[in-house]
């Protein structure tokens, strides 16, 4: 029996897609009074291994190749299909998530299930492994193409847009003292830069600088704003807060110097290395700060020249 890989993407699609979307609506059925001798022809000409038995769209049972073979072997005389069909049929509802179909196929080892409309009980179609696999592949293919198009568009945006000068501006708002959301801006920015096709080393340097700046705003200020301006040749980051300000910038820049309170240190912040990490990642960095008013940090990272990876510095 095939087992579907426990890939998270397939799981996700399995919940997103409904049985209705994957099922085969090309409904072949037989009447309960049809004779067993006619069944063979029905199965063979439609290349199917089983067929639902219905009366006025109501499912009465299922008859399959195995039942036919057993009947032939027994040498019994011809009879109506309803005498040999299985009446205990495992069915699926059209509105169930596809993952239920996958689970049931694995659980019972059957090849196909009739699909019913939940309210009316009407037979709508059947679903097989093949149907499921086809639908999953189709959906993956579509999503993959959409992602490709998105990536292509994003990474060519500077060439596609006609202007004397083009730049993109991203803005992020930081909530002070909120450690649950701290780090979200830098992680969102890193993803966006990746989409734009920024070199991974550059994206990493920008993300690290923004992470450290963001953390400082979270820890020391009541809130702030990050503005990132992406030009074809450089990325400029501005982090502004209306916190207490830094009385002595030179001292604050000293590795190991930190005024982080004890409870913040317990979380692993306050190594006194943040501003230094920013400096190492930046091609240029300026801090201006007014005590009682706030702090402004400007960080420049060049994107065109051969980047010196931060790791090897």
């Amino acid at each position: 029996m095939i087992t579907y890989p426990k890939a998270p993407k397939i799981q996700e699609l399995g919940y997103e897609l409904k049985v209705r979307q994957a099922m085969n609506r090309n409904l072949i059925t037989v009447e309960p009074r049809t004779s067993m001798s006619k069944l063979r022809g029905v199965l063979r000409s439609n290349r199917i291994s089983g067929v639902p038995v219905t009366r006025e769209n109501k499912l009465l049972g299922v008859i399959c190749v195995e039942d036919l073979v057993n009947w032939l072997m027994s040498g019994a005389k011809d009879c109506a299909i309803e005498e040999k069909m299985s009446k205990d049929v495992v069915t699926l509802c059209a509105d169930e998530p596809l993952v239920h179909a996958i689970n049931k196929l694995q659980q019972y080892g059957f090849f196909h299930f009739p699909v019913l409309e939940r309210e009316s009980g009407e037979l709508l179609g059947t679903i097989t492994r093949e149907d499921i696999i086809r639908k999953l592949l189709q959906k993956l293919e579509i999503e993959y193409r959409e992602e490709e198009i998105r990536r292509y568009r994003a990474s060519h945006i500077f060439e596609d847009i006609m202007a004397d000068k083009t730049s993109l501006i991203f803005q992020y708002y930081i909530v002070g003292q909120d450690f649950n959301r701290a780090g979200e801006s830098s992680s969102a920015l890193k993803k966006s830069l990746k989409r734009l096709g920024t070199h991974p080393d550059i994206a990493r340097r920008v993300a690290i600088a923004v992470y450290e700046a963001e953390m400082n705003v979270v820890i020391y200020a009541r809130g702030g704003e990050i503005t990132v301006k992406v030009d074809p040749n450089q990325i400029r980051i501005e982090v502004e807060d209306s916190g207490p300000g830094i009385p002595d910038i030179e001292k604050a820049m000293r590795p190991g110097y930190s005024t982080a309170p004890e409870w913040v240190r317990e979380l692993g912040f306050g190594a006194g290395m943040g501003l230094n990490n920013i400096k190492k990642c930046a091609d240029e960095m300026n801090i201006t700060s007014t005590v009682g008013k706030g702090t402004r940090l400007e960080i420049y990272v060049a994107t065109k020249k051969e980047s010196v990876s931060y790791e090897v510095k």
Partner: protein
Amino acid sequence: MKLSELVIKFDLKVKCGVHELDREIKGGYVSDLLSDVIANGRAGEVWITLQIHHNIVGVASLKSLAAIVIINGREPEEETIKKAEDEGIPIMVSKLPAFELVGRLYQAGISGTR
């Protein structure tokens, strides 16, 4: 050594990232200070720490670390596990204290310098 071997050899409890255990470990770093890991951790290393809150995931992701190993049997917070699963960062828990775990990793050939 692969992460999966690490898990078996050192009896680690995998909290998340089971699909990523095929990664090769390039070394190790021990620290409980996030900025220190940002400055000195290197891509592909396992990070040994006692921190359990979700910012460790951000740091590991920023530095493309191979995995986070939490010591002393401390349990990562729920939010940490959720975020790590999203970012594809495996988190493992060891019952051992840092000194003992790092000693054993070193003996097994995982180095802190390159």
